[in-house]
């Protein structure tokens, strides 16, 4: 008896070799992470600022503040800010 039923789509796709090459996947993920970090840079800094004071927060802030500064220069965080206003106000 099939342990997970016959609808295991992942196994079928693995056998069919669906997907992209590992190099393609790595490039897409690196670009995605860079874009996501820039688009969310200000929100990341704001959420890190809410962490309890202590060494962990200091380390987070050391990384988050330069990220937010670079993000603000690119103006990419504006998209998230606009969407947040649209959804929540």
């Amino acid at each position, binding site marked *: 008896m099939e342990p*997970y039923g016959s609808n295991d789509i992942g196994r079928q796709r693995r056998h069919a070799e669906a997907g992209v090459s590992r190099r393609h996947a790595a490039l897409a993920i690196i670009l995605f992470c860079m874009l996501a970090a820039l688009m969310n840079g200000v929100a990341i800094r704001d959420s890190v600022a809410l962490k309890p004071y202590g060494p962990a927060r200091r380390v987070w802030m050391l990384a988050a503040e330069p990220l937010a500064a670079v993000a603000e220069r690119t103006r990419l965080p504006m998209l998230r800010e606009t969407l947040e206003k649209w959804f929540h106000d």
Partner: protein
Amino acid sequence: MIFPTLEFALFFLVVLSTHWLLYRFSGIWKWFLLGASYFFYGYWDWRFLGLLASSSILNHACAKGMQHFTGARARKTFLVLAVIFNLGTIAFFKYYGFFIEQAYLLAFRFGIPCSLPLLDIILPVGISFFTFQALSYVIDVYRGAMQPTGRMLDFALYLSFFPQLVAGPIVRARDLAPQLAAFQPPPRIDLGRAAFLILGGLFKKTVIANYLAQTVVDPVFAYPDAYGAIDTLLAVYGYAVQIYCDFSAYSDMAIGFCLLLGIHIPINFDAPYSATSIQDFWRRWHISLSTFLRDYLYIPLGGSRQGVARGYRNLMVTFLLGGLWHGAAWTFIIWGALHGIYLCIERAIAGRPAKRAAAITGWRRFGRQCLVFNLVGLSWIFFRSQTFADAGRMLHSLSNWSSAPQLLSVTLLLAILAGLASQILDNRRQQRLWDAFNRLPAIAQAVLGALVLVAILAMGPRGVAPFIYFQF
């Protein structure tokens, strides 16, 4: 560390990049993944790392014992030892308080003086999941369905593998352990499916589940007397969608992260609210648990092969224990009992309805789907309520049609409908989208993914509530 957090994002990026750098060096790669998994688990509470390690050592020792001593008696002794250890661990951490409380209540009722030690026990996160995985391993080795893993390290890595460690799916050792013992990187990464599973899971959890919890489910389940029938009905439907979006989101994200690591784990949900019978529902809901209960409890009890009455008894025992697995409370037992009763009635009326369900089409099919959804919704009332009395108050509120609805809104209806609409777009239909995504150039995939991520994060409330199934 929960999935939709900055901490996990950073953790996963480090693990993902190191994994693909180290996979050729099998020994170092395994120790690295084991270390990462223990770090992930220890991030909650490092004190329970010892429990995970001791579970790995003892279960593997028992499996090796079964392999070494071929006599039937010796093999059975090792199996019993492993089962006692696993069930004893789960009984102590999860059910000790519950059973002590019941013993006190019983003793009080019969006027018997009773003095049992009350302990303040913290429930280790994910204990029900990794204990069941360990059980599947020793039972499969005992049955001869698989050989024990070559080294302790391989089994320890299987048991602690971080994507599915704390909330499933309960992946069988024979499916996952060989992939980790001798990692064979797939020639292609199913980036489209991984992106849809991770971002779709994020949407289901942070937008739909969190919104429904805050807007309707938590307020109504906390004070059902303050609401009328329409609000209570919305809360029940809302909870049905919330628990699906919450739990399937975790499973989906776990599968997606595994795909990026080049590891395959099976699906755990297959559009459960499109089920046309309760049996069909259990083939689609928490598939890894329902198949575990089927293979390691229902069939060993005799299944439906030993007569009608025994078949019903076995169904009820399986679902009562399935209910108890979810938590140490009578409400979970009632939830399990309700599903057992549904299945018994279904079997009594229609024999094996799931086999004929595919033949039903059109409005009849839709009618059956609505009936199943409402029966499941009724059982969720017991599952979500803190006490039996709370569930009673919810049921009472369902009969209060004189109060005007307070919570009804277009957004709320849209959130419930969005959760239900995801049942139409099942895995097979989504394949076209995954393949279309896979055909895009890397830059387009990155831009599209980042835009969707920003939209999801902007839509959802700030902060992420823990996943419901972490408590099990």
